[in-house]
C-alpha cells in the first residue's frame, strides 16, 4: 500500500490532491425503512479480512504522513446505502456478492423479514455502510529522495 501511495505521489503535481474514499468495515447496519420510520433489524457481520484491511489502510496513511509525503486537510464519515425492495433480494445479494468479506447471521435475516412483513407498503430493506472520505495534500519535500 505504501508503495502505491508513493506512486500516486510521483504522478501528482506539486500541491496535488489525493482523495481517499473507502467503506469502513465496522457496523454495517441492516434497516427496514419507509417514509414514516426506520427500523434497525441487525447488522452485517464483518469478517476478519475486512477489518484487517481497514487497519492496514490506516497504517499506510499514517506512514505516508510520517514521511511527509501527504498532509491530511479534511476528513469525514458519511452513510452510503445499499437498498432493495425485499429482504430476499438483500439476502441473495449478500450471499452472492459479499460472501468473501461479510456475512449475515440468521437472527438478522429473520428480524429483517419479520419487520418488512408488517411494515408500510413503501418499505425497502437497506444496509447502511459508513464511508470515510479524506483529502490529502501532496507535500513538497525531498526528504525521501
Amino acid at each position, binding site marked *: 500500500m505504501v*508503495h*502505491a501511495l508513493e506512486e500516486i505521489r510521483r504522478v*501528482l503535481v506539486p500541491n496535488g490532491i489525493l482523495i481517499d474514499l473507502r467503506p469502513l468495515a465496522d457496523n454495517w447496519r441492516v434497516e427496514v425503512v419507509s417514509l414514516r420510520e426506520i427500523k434497525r433489524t441487525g447488522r452485517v457481520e464483518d469478517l476478519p479480512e475486512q477489518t484487517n484491511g481497514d487497519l492496514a489502510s490506516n497504517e499506510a496513511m499514517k506512514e505516508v504522513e510520517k514521511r511527509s509525503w501527504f498532509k491530511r486537510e479534511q476528513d469525514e464519515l458519511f452513510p452510503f*446505502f445499499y*437498498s*432493495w425492495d425485499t429482504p430476499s*433480494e438483500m439476502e441473495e445479494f449478500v450471499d452472492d456478492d459479499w460472501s468473501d468479506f461479510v456475512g449475515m447471521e440468521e437472527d438478522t435475516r429473520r428480524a429483517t423479514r419479520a419487520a418488512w412483513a408488517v411494515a408500510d407498503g413503501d418499505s425497502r430493506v437497506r444496509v447502511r455502510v459508513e464511508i470515510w472520505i479524506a483529502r490529502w495534500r501532496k507535500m513538497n519535500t525531498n526528504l525521501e529522495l
Partner: protein
Amino acid sequence: MSLQKDPDHNEIKHLHKFVDSTDKRVLEIGCGEGRLTWQYAKDAHSVIAIDLDRDSLRVARVDRPSDLEKQIHFANANSEYLPFSKEKFDIAILAWSL
C-alpha cells in the same frame, strides 16, 4: 434485482464537497465499472480511470456515456506501478481501493 446503490447520492455530494475537479486532470484508482466516474468526470479536463479487473473495465467502456468518450480513458493498471510520467495529474482518487 431491485438494488439501488447510494440512492441519496451521498458519495458524489461528499466528493464535490472535498474536491473541485473542474478543468482538472484526474486519476481514479479502482474505478470498477465506472459508477463514480460518470458522476464527476463531466467537469474535469480529463480522467484516466484504472482498475485491475478487466471484466469491470469492459463494462465501464461499454457503459461510458457518449458525451464523455473524449474525457475518460480506461486502463488496466496496478496502483503499485502506475504507467504515467511524473506530475501528470492534479487529483488522484482512491475509489474504495486503498
